[in-house]
């Protein structure tokens, strides 16, 4: 028989920039490593993800 249904407890991630405690820390954010990459990122349409819609797959 299949296992009984178990729903994971929803755990929203803390607000970005959070953290704390005694574990490993987020890496220090350095300056962007190349101009080319910055140019690529500036060309990304900020609304692209809003328009992106897919069918559920496997």
């Amino acid at each position: 028989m299949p296992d009984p249904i178990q729903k994971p407890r929803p755990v929203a991630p803390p607000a970005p920039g959070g953290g704390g405690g005694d574990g490993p820390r987020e890496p220090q954010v350095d300056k962007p490593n190349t101009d080319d990459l910055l140019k690529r990122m500036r060309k990304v349409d900020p609304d692209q993800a809003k328009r992106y819609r897919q069918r559920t797959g496997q």
Partner: protein
Amino acid sequence: MQIQFGLETEIGISRAESRDLDVVAESIALVRSATAPGVRQRWDYRQEDPHQDARGFRVRELRQDTDEANYFAQDASRPLSFSEIKSDLVLRNGARFYNDHAHPEYCTPECATLEELARQDAAGDALLIDCARAVGAESGNPVLLYKNNTDFRGHSYGCHENYLLPRQLPWDRLADGMQAFLVTRQVFAGAGKYGWEEEDRFGGPGFQLAQRSDFFSELQSVDTMQRRPLVNTRDEPHADPAKYRRFHVIIGDANLSPFATYLKVGTAALVLQALVNGAPRERLPRLADPLAALPAISRDRDWKWRVRSAGGRETTAVEIQRAYLQVVRDFAPPADPAWARLLADWEQVLADLERDPGATADRLDWAAKHRLIEQFRAAEGIDAADPWLRSLDLAYHLLDPAAGLFYGLLESGAIRLPFPRERILGLPLAPPPDTRAALRGGCIDRFGPQVESAQWDAVILRDGRQRIEVDLRDVFTPARVAQGLGALAAARRPADLLALPFAKIL
């Protein structure tokens, strides 16, 4: 290493101008644009059966059957046959490329080495990029392909792994033994995601390790589209079912970084080999609540990844992985230098994750994505909840060397490859030389017009009035593959393949 493996990756598809986009039509058009050498619309669907459960029963229906029936009903209005909608292309390298409902899907051929898998996965990316260029150029509306696993609206699609195992490994030992491994490996195998989701809805902003970890709610089941399980029980070996089983892993993310793929598949293969070699149950880590641990690890912004073991002890995902690594050392110590290096790379990445997770940004997708986008966010003053971050996340996965952010990192020298670049990237399409894929690909290359049908475990060829089946269900040793390749090299026509002990007239 006796275990062979492969990947099947569903791709997200869109257009630069995407109003009223029909993703099914887009996926069909993309797959049909492929010009790579292969045979078209000859996949043998009669051999597929996703309803057989490895726990020893057959389910009457999958949860997705209703959805699939609805999709088929919608697709029936298209002026295309089932075969045309699927548009299967079996390629010269033994791979499969087709439309899986609404996603172009590339399945690598069976591989016996991690270097070969890196080559075959890169070949799939190159094929997809070529198709996108062709369709985009024809229409003047660029095609955007995303090697990711979500649309940020609660619709996920997969990158599945397949591992061929001896049947004598009991299912319960396999499933129990792999569960904690699959839940915790996201610390190095996750592709990173800006946002969290539930089924069919966006949840909210925030960064997490894995694209897929929002979408699993069962411990085990045969389903793959709804209420997905940590361990998929589909029992469809694509091989002699008396001798083999295929461990079908659906929990993983699609990786852009070849190093992440190398770790993801290589470590799984090593742990599976340890299980095959008899690693005892008491040596294998177990989690108190694996379903809760999956999103908790993924969403932990402290990057400590604490979990509770089945015995109640507090531990971490890294420590769980380290316990698996020790099991591999004790029960499947690799003699082959390539696998020994994988073991060392696994150990190193775990040490780096514990010491300074950011140090893994040269190898792991989630860390590379996070560093890059956080750099940009700081430079541009973008709010942490700005939807732009999800667009940048998508752009990381864009299969376009000129615009994709992963490719930008690769070209800037920020990404380490697990093998020399010239051995895995930009190579002509060729099958792995040492698995049955070489026979599948060889039959297509030599006798393509006479290939009546192909599947993972058989190729059927026509020669005059004869139908000849090359049965690949038990062609897994180097000797068997070499025997097949010898016969193929000597054959002037398909009937000559009847010299093989695993070929017959139907």
